[in-house]
């Protein structure tokens, strides 16, 4: 299958800070690729380089077969971009915004008007098209921004946190639109820090400090998590967590309501040791069982691993 996006050693520095550190990325045509990672991981910087808004400091990147250094303007013609911050004209109506961007993308006359009204209808804004954009709610603004990124039928979509701050129904609405776009053969690169949104992607890249610390389909990521996981149901939960953290071989502990998720290099013997230690401290243990990791577990595990690496380095 052909590659829509391909980077090699893509690097961007701002002064002494390295925002993106030698990223190697391959996105297949037609897939939904999710960038997952904490704030400041380099997701936005990567997208801005791929859209031709920012020059790489080092490395190469090809988008739709075009070089980001040489053919930035040609790339812009075939990609759509939705920035993290709402960036449409608040003092224009929804329709005027779409019409303007369609025009700037060089759609002419009838084609422009047809695409503008089609795209508006598609994101469900047809009946709000005469309203000033600044008066629309957050969710509607996001849909309008998506419409602007889609109006010229781009083959690749770059979406920087398209659902940030949206309520669940709005988020669902946007993801429906993304699936629809993907079904039309468009490649989608989307950043998020909602783990459950990452589950919706075909491929996930976990970014941390400018590089990938994990890459693959959600299933692969879970299967390949380098740590074992125990779910502990015990009372009092805070005390249980303190005990677990002190135990040899335990790399991390997360608390979820009444249960603990305990990460370890291996679970052989650990289950037994944990049980003993908890009981010795007077903690009432209801159950301890090995469980399959969720993406969130994978994310936590990978982030912790990367931080340890950095600590050692």
């Amino acid at each position, binding site marked *: 299958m052909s590659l829509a996006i391909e980077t090699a050693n893509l690097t961007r520095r701002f002064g002494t800070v390295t925002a993106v550190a030698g990223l190697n990325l391959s996105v297949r045509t037609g897939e939904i690729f999710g960038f997952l990672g904490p704030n400041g991981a380099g997701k936005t910087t990567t997208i801005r380089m791929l*859209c*031709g*808004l*920012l*020059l790489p400091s080092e490395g190469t990147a090809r988008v739709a077969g075009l070089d980001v250094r040489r053919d*930035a*303007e*040609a790339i*812009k*013609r075939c*990609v759509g*971009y939705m*920035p993290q*911050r*709402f*960036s*449409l*004209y*608040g*003092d*224009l109506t929804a329709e*005027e915004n779409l019409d*303007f*961007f369609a*025009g*700037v*993308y*060089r759609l*002419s006359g009838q084609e422009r008007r047809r695409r503008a009204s089609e795209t508006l209808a598609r994101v469900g804004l047809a009946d709000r098209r005469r309203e000033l954009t600044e008066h629309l709610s957050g969710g509607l603004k996001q849909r309008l921004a998506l419409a*602007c990124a889609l109006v010229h039928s781009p083959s690749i979509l770059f979406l920087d946190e398209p659902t940030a701050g949206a309520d669940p129904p709005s988020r669902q609405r946007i993801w429906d639109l993304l699936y629809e776009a993907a079904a039309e053969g468009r490649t989608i690169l989307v950043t998020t820090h909602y783990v459950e949104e990452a589950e919706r992607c075909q491929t996930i890249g976990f970014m941390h400090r400018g590089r990938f610390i994990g890459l693959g389909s959600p299933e692969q990521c879970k299967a390949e998590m380098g740590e074992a996981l125990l779910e502990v149901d015990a009372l009092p939960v805070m005390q249980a967590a303190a005990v677990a953290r002190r135990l040899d071989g335990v790399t991390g502990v997360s608390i979820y309501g009444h249960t603990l998720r305990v990460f370890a290099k291996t679970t052989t013997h650990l289950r037994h040791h944990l049980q003993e230690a908890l009981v010795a401290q007077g903690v009432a243990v209801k159950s301890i069982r090995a469980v399959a990791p969720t993406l969130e577990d994978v994310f936590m595990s990978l982030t912790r691993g990367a931080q340890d690496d950095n600590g050692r380095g």
Partner: protein
Amino acid sequence: MLAVVGHVARKETRQILRDRRSLLLILVMPILLTFLFGKALETGELRQIPSVILNQDGSPESNVIVTAFSTYDEVQLQGEVATLQEAQDLLAQGKIKAAIVIPQGFMRQIETGEEAQLQLLLDGTDNNSAPIVEGVARRVIQRYNTERAIKGLWARGVRPDRGRRLIQPVFVHREIRYNPGLQYLSYVMPGVIGLTLQLLTVMLMAVTIPRERERGTLDQLMATPITRTELILGKLLPYFGISLLNVATILFVADRWFNVPVLERLPLLLALCALFVLSSLATGLLISTVSRSQFQAVQIAVFYILPVFMLSGAYAPIEAIPDYIRPISSLFPLMYFSRAVRAVTLRGAGLPLVWKDLVILGGFVLILLYWAVLSFRKRVA
């Protein structure tokens, strides 16, 4: 390309029209400024300089001098004072600008053939008034001397008409071409028009790109295949339209209330204004492309406009500026505009006399626009 320029222009126009408050300001300000600047400078000619007389002599001859002063419009005699101290106090308090002192013994000195003096006490802080009072005093004394000499000659048998020619064989005859009233206002109005247009256009244009940068909309725009030229021209057009509207109202005000003969050379004046406004908008765009924020844009605009005010010859003749500063003046389009409009409105000059300035202004437009396009970066390096 033209289509995209049109889209940008239409978008800008919509935004301008929707911002009612700014629009009102844009349309009313130039009229107000022209009117205020013009009115403030209209009284540029000094009349009625407050002065007092200190007549220490109190003789018939000194009374002749006092009467002579009162016939001049330039000085306004506020009465007589009794002592020098009194005159000095009034001068110190700023209540008068000049004291005319006729010392004791004035008449006696004249009669005995000694040198008699008329003394002036002047306030040098007002360097406009002092020379005017001095000029009046010279004229008063010259006339007095002449009359006295004629009388003296007559006593020796020379008839007055012959005596006058003996004493004053040469006269100056003057004929003032162009601006016969020597009015400062007529001289300065072209500068006022230019300054108003400059101030408005540069300020308006300078903030447009930083405004988009601050609102984040530039980011979205930069992700599209729009070219720099399309963006620059698209932003320029609507503001050019507004500026032409301003040109019309300003010229109307100048014609109606400040006696600038606009209608006589309307096409030429419009051409000058249009080119000047374009050069000014291009300057604003250039500022716009290099500014990170609206605040910074306004800052740069002010730093540009202040030297323009002082150095472009809008208020005072460019020849009054030292040679080594004049090269800077020649960098400002306003200098050529003021010069050309002055030639047109004061001397009735036509195309043959001002085509050079038209060409220079046109050159400014092209260079500044090109520069603005080049200095605009679509991508952050």
